[in-house]
């Protein structure tokens, strides 16, 4: 069992690294061989040079920091709000029934379409970006929490009730811990969506953040700049996702270990 697992890890790691090397080689020399001009696909070395230039000249660290900050705040607030409303609706069928058409409508509406509206309201500040992130993170978290609270085995509730549990004891001892695994599944999705929300907000207006660099690079016809920015965005999203996983491993330590993968 353990030998199988370590063999899997070894073989998988080798394959992953090999794929990365093949990809980087193809990126560096592929465009030249296929006669793809650098303004379509800048090779790896050109992208790296652009990264160094952006780091010192274009204040890349600062823009990345702005985006990361907006993602973090939007994610935290959106998750808190989503979880809170999820618990309230999960425990009150009447409220869910009354609100469900509006929630559904909001869920169907593409959240990023709100970005221009928020910028009209709040100007070229960080707030509209955070607001889009909140809105986009809210739904997966809320839906997961709501479904989890609804899905708690009624016999578990009855068991607690037979011990004379109060409503708040049922929540804190049964419903809340039972909702944590789906909550974290929602948070994982939310952490990647938060980046999308923030970037769209930055694309639409403002002069800071990676989304702004994207549209700036596009305007300049600087393909390498767009490449660098996409990579930085992926790193920001990746770190956000990893943070969620780290917290999840601490909180859900009691869960049976996954057979393979983990992420």
């Amino acid at each position, binding site marked *: 069992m353990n030998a199988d697992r370590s063999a899997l890890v070894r073989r998988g790691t080798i394959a992953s690294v090999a794929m990365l090397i093949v990809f980087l080689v193809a990126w560096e020399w592929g465009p030249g061989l296929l006669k793809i001009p650098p303004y379509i696909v800048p090779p790896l070395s050109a992208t790296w040079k652009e990264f160094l230039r952006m780091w010192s000249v274009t204040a890349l660290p600062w823009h990345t920091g702005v985006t990361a900050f907006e993602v973090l705040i939007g994610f935290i607030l959106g998750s808190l709000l989503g979880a809170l409303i999820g618990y309230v609706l999960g425990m009150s069928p009447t409220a869910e029934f009354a609100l469900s058409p509006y929630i559904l409508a909001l869920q169907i509406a593409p959240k990023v379409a709100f970005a221009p509206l928020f910028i009209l309201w709040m100007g070229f500040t960080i707030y509209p970006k955070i607001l889009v992130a909140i809105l986009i993170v809210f739904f997966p978290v809320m839906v997961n929490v709501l479904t989890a609270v609804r899905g708690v*085995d009624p016999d578990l509730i009855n068991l607690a009730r037979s011990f004379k549990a109060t409503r708040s004891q049922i929540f804190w001892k*049964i419903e809340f811990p039972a909702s944590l695994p789906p909550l974290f599944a929602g948070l994982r999705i939310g952490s990647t969506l938060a980046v999308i929300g923030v970037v769209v907000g930055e694309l639409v207006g403002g002069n800071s953040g990676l989304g702004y660099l994207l549209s700036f690079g596009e305007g300049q016809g600087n393909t390498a700049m767009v490449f660098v920015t996409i990579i930085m965005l992926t790193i920001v999203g990746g770190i956000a996702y990893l943070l969620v996983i780290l917290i999840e491993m601490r909180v859900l330590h*009691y869960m049976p270990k996954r057979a393979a993968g983990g992420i």
Partner: protein
Amino acid sequence: MKRLEYRNVTMRFAGAKGSVFTAIENVDIALDDGEVVSLIGPSGCGKSTLLNIGSGLYAPTEGEAYVDGERVEGPNEHVAFMLQKDLLLPWRTIEQNVLLGTEIRKLDPAASRQKARDLLQAFKLGEFSDRYPHQLSGGMRQRAALARTLAVDPSVLLLDEPFSAVDAQTRIMLQHDLAQTLVKANKTALLITHDLLEAVILSDRVLVMSKRPGRIIDEIVIDIPDRDHPLKRRRDPKVAGYIARLMDQLDIGEHPAQDQAKEPA
């Protein structure tokens, strides 16, 4: 004083399209202190309804239930129940699971922890107290569930098919553990089961319920010694006679192939 008493209990539920169906009708049951009584009957005869009334989760439509002479008007300290599902919380260790009821009832934590340890020791789970439920076998989980039920020190245990989800050998072990515990702690228990042999070897009396609406149609006093030794009781020649009588009452054996259509719940 009777430990557990149902007086003329009737329970009706609203069915589909405004219909009303009667789950149980005019049920009278009384359990003496330390008595173990099994309840047997066809599926859907309302056995579990009786249990829910006893534990205060349902209020009967007519009649009353009494535990330790007090009328049951809701969940109370005197009763604890155990189901076929172990209902262990996956995020709690075995010991924390056993302590669930004591925490909810805000019993003294130190004394409760000692009690939980003693119970786990008695159920051969001492070394597993820090494990999580998914790390234990079905039989161990069911023993932990029994420990949780006993940790709140109820005077009456309501057991709803507690061993029907485990394999036959584990079941024999669990029956032994239960029988020993009930005698040692002098607990009163109402046991619902589908297993005729289990009913006979674990109980002082077996009550037979009819098809819906459920009524008590027979009472068999099990006149075999050693209620704390179901393994010994199993071998008693009287067992076969009791089981034959139960089969007659339940109308099984005559038409083994005929399966009753399930009534809409």
